[in-house]
């Protein structure tokens, strides 16, 4: 089942909000979809990224009705990390939901 991009974007933003409340880490979304998440001057360290991915995987599972794994070898080996910015993450989720 291919997920609608707008739905995925909403899921990701909701998860970021929930993650911020739980972790007290602020993710600056002032640049909209191109806001940084991980790598470079992104706000997440590797442990925080793990927590956010787990949140998103669970939210997607509820939406899709089946589980997905976001951080596999395929994701890690990409030239542009799917976790670098909000838009990359959203596009990646839409892409793998189609597989």
């Amino acid at each position, binding site marked *: 089942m291919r997920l609608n991009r707008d739905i995925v974007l909403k899921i990701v933003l909701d998860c970021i909000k929930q993650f911020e409340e739980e972790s007290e880490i602020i993710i600056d979304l002032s640049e909209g979809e191109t806001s940084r998440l991980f790598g470079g001057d992104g706000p997440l360290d590797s*442990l925080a990224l793990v927590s956010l991915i*787990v949140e998103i995987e669970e939210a997607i599972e509820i939406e899709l009705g089946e589980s997905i794994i976001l951080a596999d070898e395929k994701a890690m080996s990409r030239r542009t990390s799917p976790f670098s910015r909000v838009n990359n993450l959203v596009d990646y989720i839409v892409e793998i939901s189609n597989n």
Partner: protein
Amino acid sequence: MKNSTKIVLITGSRKGIGRTLVEYYLNIGYIVIGCSRQDSDLINPNYKHFICDVSDEISALKIFKFIKSEYGKLDILINNAGVASLNHILLTPITTVKKLFDTNLLGTFLFSREAAKIMKKHSYGRIVNFSTVAVPLNLEGETIYSATKSAVEQLTKNMSKELGPYGITVNAVGPTPIETDLIKAIPKDKIDKLLMSQSINRIGNFEDLINLIDFFICDRSNFINGQIIYLGGVLK
């Protein structure tokens, strides 16, 4: 269900150690979820059984989906499911090797991963894995079995570091032989030889094991993490 009621998941719960653990934790008021490759004849309102091969991801995920929707939390995971094989390395088929690694290592990994996702939400969790004294004793004839359990020990140590920050402890028990189906096929002279290599030369019992698991899972053990404790005074 009271919010303080402990929810425990025990793999390989149909018979042997797993069954004993299920009955013990039901008796002290826990809600127990169990699984095995065959159905269980245990009927108790606080017990839910799933038929599941622990290395099968799809079946495993159904269990965790149930736990999330039914209880919203998981306090304790006991990765008891295991298979053993006693054979000389020259006579060990590759299918046996795969089967042992699938159940003992992959199953432990899969259930720990999914359990930790639920436990993380409450910043609390206890995971207990199963090793064996066959690892430190380097027992001949148990090469593949002890290799899988050695891998479980490494998994335990590394997971304890990765999950510790979330309030989840991961430890392992290393039982001596206990009278279960798992050791039925082992000749008596082999068992006797093994017992002599322990500092306390007797066969283990369920009470010994329960005592150690209780230690790992109690609330006060929140500073005990990444440890492997062998019964019978066996030293690494």
